[in-house]
């Protein structure tokens, strides 16, 4: 951005310099002959004024005489204190005597810089009156050789700059822009994927005195794919937690879609098998997805504490510090004809379920050891009964982070904890 701004400024400066200079170069020929003319005019004026009438008030005549000779001549009247009396001076500027210099030995002819234009100034002081007639030959530049050389130098510098900038404009900038665009797009996509993942998962959990639910997701910026949802419909608490086996934007979009589909089926009291089949077929029917998902879905009838569940290739759900009995079933999205089945288990008051993704068991420490199932089971057995689900989730995140030590997070981590009250 800064680069583009600087580039724009340079282009503007170079263009202005070029325009300004071309104007000056055009004037060069004109001013060369002007110099000679001017010298002659100055001589005439000087002679006229010196040998003029005795009447000191007849200065207007002198002025008209000058103006007749050259229309570019203008004048200003002022008293010796420097107050302007008739401000018809073309450049609108009053000169002080100290700013003018005698011009090549001519009487009454001085050179001066008026707004950085070199001008010839004709000054005549009437002997008995405190008035001066100041004439300035202006509107044209007196362009001397030094100025010309300086301007030529700047013109060449500007020319080189313009050539360099043209090269930059045509080749360097497009290449940089392409590079930045690629990088921005990639980053933007990952950010969208990351946002999608966090927005798709449930953030407000059912508030029923008979149960307590909490879930947390810690997604990797460039992996993505873990998801969960939890919906209460009447007496039934539906929950799902899964992991899409791809990364980045594609995984995020599919998990977003899955969350929507699962949520909507849950809200309509759909049987778990219908949920599993829908997810399985949805991914199988779109071979372009080139991905699959592991998924644990379950529902709990809060009036009877009867739980039904189905585990499609997902990590084994824990119940009170031991693994729930789960038949291995195929991950969803591979075989559209696979027939899933559900299992059932009656929970009791105080039962605590822990669902998680493989980011938990496969977290690694500096020695490349896995956190593993046995460590997780042991940790879960050490939880106190009074701990809330939110506390459990947070504690597990802290436990994994402590186990990992200096080693960074290597996969998404999603955790859901459900407690029967």
């Amino acid at each position, binding site marked *: 951005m800064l680069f583009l701004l600087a580039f724009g400024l340079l282009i503007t400066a170079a263009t202005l310099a070029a325009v300004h200079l071309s104007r000056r170069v055009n004037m060069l020929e004109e001013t060369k002959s002007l110099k000679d003319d001017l010298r002659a005019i100055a001589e005439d004026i000087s002679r006229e004024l010196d040998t003029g009438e005795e009447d000191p008030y007849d200065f207007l005549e002198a002025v008209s005489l000058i103006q007749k000779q050259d229309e570019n001549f203008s004048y200003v009247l002022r008293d010796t204190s420097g107050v302007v009396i008739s401000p018809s001076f073309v450049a609108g500027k009053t000169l002080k005597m100290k700013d003018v210099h005698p011009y090549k030995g001519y009487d009454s002819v001085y050179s001066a810089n008026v707004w950085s234009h070199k001008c010839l100034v004709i000054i005549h002081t009437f002997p008995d009156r405190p008035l001066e007639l100041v004439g300035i030959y202006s509107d044209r530049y007196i362009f001397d050789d030094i100025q010309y050389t300086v301007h030529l130098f700047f013109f060449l510098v500007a020319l080189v700059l313009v050539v360099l900038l043209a090269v930059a404009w045509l080749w360097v900038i497009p290449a940089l822009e392409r590079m930045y665009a690629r990088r921005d797009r990639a980053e933007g996509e990952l950010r969208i994927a990351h946002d999608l993942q966090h927005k798709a998962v449930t953030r407000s959990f059912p508030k029923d005195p008979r149960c307590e639910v909490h879930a947390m997701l810690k997604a990797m910026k460039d992996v993505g794919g873990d998801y969960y949802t939890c919906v209460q419909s009447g007496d039934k608490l539906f929950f799902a937690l899964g992991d899409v086996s791809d990364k980045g934007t594609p995984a995020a979009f599919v998990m977003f879609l899955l969350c929507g589909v699962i949520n909507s089926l849950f809200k309509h009291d759909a049987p778990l098998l219908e949920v599993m089949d829908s997810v399985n077929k949805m991914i199988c029917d779109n071979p372009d997805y080139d991905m699959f998902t592991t998924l644990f879905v379950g529902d709990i009838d809060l009036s009877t504490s009867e739980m039904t569940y189905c585990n499609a290739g997902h990590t084994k759900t824990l119940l009170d510090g031991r693994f729930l009995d789960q038949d291995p079933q195929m*991950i969803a999205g591979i075989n559209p004809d696979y027939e899933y089945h559900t299992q059932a288990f009656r929970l009791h008051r105080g039962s605590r379920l822990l669902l998680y993704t493989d980011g938990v068991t496969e977290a690694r420490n500096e020695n490349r050891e896995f956190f593993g199932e046995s460590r997780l089971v042991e940790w879960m057995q050490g939880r106190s009964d009074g701990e809330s689900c939110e506390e459990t989730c947070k504690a597990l995140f802290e436990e994994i982070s402590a186990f990992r030590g200096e080693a960074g997070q*290597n996969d998404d981590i999603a955790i859901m904890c459900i407690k029967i009250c």
Partner: protein
Amino acid sequence: MLKTNIEEKDGRVVVTPVGELETSVCDSFQEEMAQLTRREGLNMELDLGSLEYISSKGLRVLISMQKAISDNGGRMVVTEVTEAVREVFDMTGLTRSFLVE
């Protein structure tokens, strides 16, 4: 870390990944395999007897490989598996779909 040995004999290609097929190496492994899976009628034997670990992203690579090979009229058979990989296959219901001999 993953090292992949590729050996061609009697019209079959034997691929032996040695080490761990974890998320970070999946992309490079898949790229390497893409050279093979493009071939028409490829007969691949995948020896997972030296694979200590496979992540869920690694599973995806195997499934994509199998799909690509069968799309090109070939066949992929898994010959050996370690206990760790067998567990993952069992848990994900993929044991039968990979035809573990």
